[in-house]
């Protein structure tokens, strides 16, 4: 039920977001362009009334951006659900794994040293960001395993430590390359302005892979809400579940951050809102959070493009402006709960 409504809402928001912008295209034309790409649809007949420039703007420029925003928003939200389940902490967020900082460091290196090339649609900044995220992930896992056998706290601490280390390194890079400061800073704030269909394809593949594992592990994650020992006493292979879930989450976050920069709070607030609506069962919560996150991000990206034309507001700033007050509200509610 909720899933159906959200799916319809997502389609409407996507079409709407593709229609608005510096060149305004009627909603119906935007819808026709999207429909024309579906299989078994006569595209010529569908596009008869739509002008060529409009087709170009929507299909080549806006749709990749809108869809990438949807995939990243949905992916981050789903990753947030899994993180909250794994760490049994409503405030856990993929950023604590340090992966986002790793991606940012990779991107900062590429920008600061002027390594800018594009290889068959893959830009160097994107590549560096992804590699940075993956290397950080390996480092965090490595340290976490050495540091302690209680992997949860270990990963958390290792992630936070790596994260602040890398943030410091990024600051140094910015100080030494003041002329690049703005570019690095803007990358970190997050944006979908560099979206291409190649990025969409890459993101989609990683996302589908991760989602399969998430939903596969849904029931195990439910039981893990009672802690490792109780979950294990009911038959969960705790170690295997944790490893698979953390690796899948990390890959998903690495992919997301590398194509869009650091976009905060989606992974935190969307799971909370969705949990209030559909309850805590992960097999339901994960796909629905994906839909919720996708809608939210497409909407935020639309605001970022259209609020103050011709300039763009970083989408990360918009999600934070909406997310931070909600975060405070959660803390306030938690405190109230404690007082009772």
């Amino acid at each position, binding site marked *: 039920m909720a899933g159906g409504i959200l799916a319809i809402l997502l389609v409407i928001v996507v079409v709407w977001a593709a229609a608005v912008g510096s060149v305004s295209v009627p909603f119906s034309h935007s819808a026709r362009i999207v429909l024309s790409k579906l299989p078994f649809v006569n595209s010529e007949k569908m596009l008869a009334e739509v002008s060529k420039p409009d087709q170009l703007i929507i299909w080549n420029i806006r749709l990749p951006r809108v869809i990438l925003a949807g995939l990243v928003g949905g992916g981050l939200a789903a990753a947030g659900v899994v993180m909250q389940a794994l760490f049994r902490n409503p405030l856990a967020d993929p950023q604590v794994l340090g992966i986002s900082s790793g991606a940012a460091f990779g991107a900062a290196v590429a920008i600061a040293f002027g390594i800018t090339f594009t290889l068959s649609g893959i830009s160097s900044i994107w590549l560096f960001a992804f590699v940075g995220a993956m290397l950080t992930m390996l480092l965090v896992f490595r340290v976490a395993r050495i540091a302690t056998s209680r992997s949860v706290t270990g990963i958390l601490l290792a992630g936070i430590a790596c994260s602040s280390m890398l943030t410091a390194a990024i600051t140094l890079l910015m100080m030494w390359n003041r002329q690049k400061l703005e570019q690095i800073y803007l990358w970190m704030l997050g944006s979908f302005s560099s979206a291409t269909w190649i990025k969409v394809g890459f993101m989609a593949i990683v996302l589908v892979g991760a989602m399969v594992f998430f939903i596969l592990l849904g029931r195990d994650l*439910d039981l893990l*809400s*009672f802690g490792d*020992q*109780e979950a294990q006493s*009911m038959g969960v292979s705790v170690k295997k579940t944790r490893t698979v879930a953390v690796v899948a989450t990390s890959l998903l976050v690495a992919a997301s951050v590398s194509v869009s920069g650091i976009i905060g709070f989606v992974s935190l607030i969307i799971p909370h809102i969705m*949990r209030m609506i559909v309850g805590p*069962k992960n097999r339901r919560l994960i796909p629905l959070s994906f839909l919720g996150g996708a809608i939210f991000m497409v909407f935020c990206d639309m605001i970022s493009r259209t609020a103050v034309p011709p300039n763009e507001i970083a989408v990360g700033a918009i999600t934070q402006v909406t997310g931070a007050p909600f975060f405070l509200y959660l803390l306030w509610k938690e405190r109230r709960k404690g007082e009772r």
Partner: protein
Amino acid sequence: MANNLEAQKLSYHPSSAKSPILTEVSYNFEEGHMTALLGPNGSGKTTMLRHFLAQIKSTAGAALIGEKDALTYAPKERSRTIAWVPQNSSGESAFNVEEVVLMARYPYKSTWEADSEEDFRIAEEAMRTVGVYEFRNREFGSLSGGERQRVLIARALAQTTQWVLLDEPTSNLDIKYQIEIMKLMRGRVDEGKSSCVVVMHDFNMVEKYCDRVAMLKNGQLVASGDTREVLTPKLLREVYEVSFEVLEKDGQRFFVPRTEN
């Protein structure tokens, strides 16, 4: 199938601990009995149970379920044999009571299998048995300590295992539910449905409901056998350093601690 839980020279000495937590404990929890695992705080009772749940690995010796080492069982297979009622649940769970109890059906499910009508029936019966059916729709996290403990017992029952290990199952319960839970488990043992190990500190409950006793002190087994023979003021004074007076009424013994010096 003879499925005793047997500790064979079980020793546990993690590198982080100064002294060993368990030292060569050998004891056979026999099926068809309700055994009380006794001992002062920190004597190794919970640690001993945790070996059978494969939550920890012994330094030496083994914990056997039937003929096999507990560690060699696949998690789901072990969970179809042993259920565990932890002392305190760590769940700050947003799941409601019914969902929590249904979780116990996990070891009987393949990855994509949904809960069947049979599962719901088992969960309902378990909830009714311990009197939590009335609040099956309440969030687990919102329950009081005693209510939670009963839900955990219902969950263990819904796991439909031969063995139920209860770690201070009555510590948060009022006297009415203490008696009900002990009666319930005793009844299940008498009917041949379950075998139990109970960790607890109330000797009058042990005397009334447990037919076997195993006593640990400083990680060593100091006494074991039939409750009537083993549970004596002399042993209790040795182990707990408290003197007890025994009163007898209608064939049952009552242990009253002497509080004066």
